[in-house]
């Protein structure tokens, strides 16, 4: 008895699926529209989630801009979110080269203390070839390349001596090499920066793009030379400090902050007049941002799916009224209410599921296209794929059940008479 009942159900579902496929095939426009609605809803969820997931992954690795165990000291915060105006920070005294030298001399724990500043818009030329305007002039020291997370590819690095004697030497980023030395070996050549000559002593290894931005668009010269020739009244330096290990990170940080407060004569009890920026802090700040975006995307997606669901319901209702005669015929030859209910539900679920899968595929593709534009490795947000498909089933059943119920309830004679 129960076995035959089960086989009956299996048979019903199988036949319903077959009938659903026939109905979908016979009503192509209606089916395509329904499918589209669901697909767009799912696409928006999956697309946004894929994009965010890829961004998140890459932000977490990408924000490790200064390498592990490293922090940055500068006048302004790295990211400001919310109402804090820059005015609060503007009145702070600049971080000067002397302060940096003093810090480097007195700090015991760091394995590296490095200084940089940069400015854009300089005229950088080799003979008749000029580097593009987005190539930065970067002032630094022997540690700077390390803080850029790159290495010397050819030639030599800037040395402590270069800095001490304000030598006119330079290490080129690969963009500058590509633009000024397409056919020549740059080593030993002299480039001009605003008309002043610099000897190319080294070439940095290529880093590629991150978030669509080149990481190789700089020309590095000793910070002392930089300050003499290109420094401005408002120049405030950024100091990168590397701790020897994760365990000593906090201690190193405290030591450096203490020394810098002394150097800058910050009275005890007053807050620092400089910012300490760490990877962890950047990631946290960014997390707040993506969290907001995610919530927003979720809200949009829920609305999209709701609209799609109502669309499905409408289309199924139209389908019911278009097929009143069919329902009458089926009932006349023995279909029960349950048979009709299952048939219409199967159709709705099948349509939404099919739309859902289409949406998932488009969404994953679209999301990954966004990722590709930012030069980020692709991901498939499996959890959101499953959630998307589950939501589609719920929509199929949820919004299909009312039309299906209406269809099942129809009186056979009235429906047969319907034209």
């Amino acid at each position: 008895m129960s076995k035959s009942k089960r086989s009956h159900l299996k048979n019903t579902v199988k036949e319903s699926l077959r009938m659903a496929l026939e109905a979908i095939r016979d009503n192509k426009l209606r089916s395509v529209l329904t499918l589209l609605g669901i697909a767009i809803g799912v696409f928006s969820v999956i697309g946004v989630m894929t994009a965010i997931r890829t961004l998140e992954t890459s932000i977490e690795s990408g924000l490790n801009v200064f390498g592990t165990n490293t922090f940055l000291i500068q006048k302004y915060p790295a990211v400001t979110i919310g109402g804090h105006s820059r005015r609060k920070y503007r009145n702070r005294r600049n971080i000067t080269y002397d302060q940096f030298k003093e810090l480097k001399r007195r700090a015991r724990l760091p394995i590296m203390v490095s200084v940089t500043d940069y400015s854009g818009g300089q005229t950088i030329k080799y003979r008749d070839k000029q580097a593009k305007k987005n190539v930065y002039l970067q002032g630094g020291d022997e540690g700077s390349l390390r803080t850029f997370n790159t290495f010397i590819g050819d030639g030599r690095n800037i040395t402590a001596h270069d800095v001490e004697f304000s030598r006119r030497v330079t290490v080129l980023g690969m963009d500058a090499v590509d633009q000024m030395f397409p056919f020549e070996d740059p080593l030993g050549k002299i480039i001009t920066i605003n008309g002043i000559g610099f000897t190319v002593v080294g070439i940095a290894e290529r880093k590629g793009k991150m978030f669509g931005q080149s990481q190789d668009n700089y020309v590095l010269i000793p910070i002392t030379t930089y300050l003499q020739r290109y420094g401005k009244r408002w120049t405030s330096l950024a100091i990168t400090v590397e701790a020897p290990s994760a365990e000593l990170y906090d201690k190193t940080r405290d030591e450096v902050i203490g020394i810098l407060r002394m150097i800058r004569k910050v009275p005890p009890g007053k807050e620092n007049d400089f910012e300490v920026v760490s990877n962890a802090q950047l990631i946290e700040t960014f997390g707040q941002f993506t969290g907001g975006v995610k919530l927003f995307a979720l809200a949009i997606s829920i609305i999209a799916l709701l609209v799609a669901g109502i669309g499905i319901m409408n289309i199924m209702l139209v389908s019911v009224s278009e097929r009143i005669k069919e329902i009458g015929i089926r009932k006349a030859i023995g279909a029960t209410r349950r048979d009709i209910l299952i048939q219409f539900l199967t159709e709705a679920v099948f349509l939404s599921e099919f739309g859902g899968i289409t949406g998932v595929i488009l969404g994953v593709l679209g999301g990954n296209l966004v990722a590709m534009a930012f030069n980020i490795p692709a991901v498939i947000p499996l959890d959101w794929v499953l959630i998307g498909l589950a939501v589609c089933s719920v929509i199929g059943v949820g919004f299909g059940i009312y039309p299906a119920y209406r269809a099942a309830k129809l009186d056979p004679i009235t429906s047969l008479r319907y034209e």
Partner: protein
Amino acid sequence: MNDLITLKGVTRVYEVGTEKIHALAGVDLTIRPNEYISTMGPSGSGKSTLMNIIGCLDTPTSGTYEFEGEPVHKMDDNQLASIRNRKIGFVFQTFNLLPKLTALRNVELPLIYANVPRDERLEQAERALRRVGLIDRMNHKPNELSGGQRQRVAIARALVTNPSVILADEPTGNLDSKSGEDIMRLFDDLHEAGNTIILVTHEEYIAKHAQRTLHILDGKINEDTLNG
């Protein structure tokens, strides 16, 4: 012999606004297996209403209806669907085939609802189509068939579950006289083979095919005659 169908005091009242229409005004009727019955009467006299009630598409307002001894007037929706499915083959004036399905799929449909396994279903559907002479058209859709052929498909669909009775409400009403005559010969054959047939018609010459004729007037059986 046991009776197949027994109606006692069956009425069917339609309420349209405040007006009550007595489509059937007390029908007593007994039908035995393998009878061949035609039903005649003016338009609006209640012939279709009677057929629908016998065919379990509709239920009486009052009175009793027993089918093979079972009280149809007490049955719920599912039981009625099951009787329609297994015991009754209905043939309509307008054929009522599903336009998007092939002849074979149309004929197969009642067996799907009867939960017959697929292999058996196809075999029985093909047998029914062969019986009405349309086996070579089984993959055609209704709009690729003539009126007479469509009605044959509908008859095959009515036959396929091997029902206890075949009901036909003006089966030749939409056909030319030649096709109508063909359809009637098919009914004659089916009756010959042991089927019980009840049909509605306006035409005297069609009614003559049956052994017994019911004359309906104003929702009542006015005359119940055996044809010589």
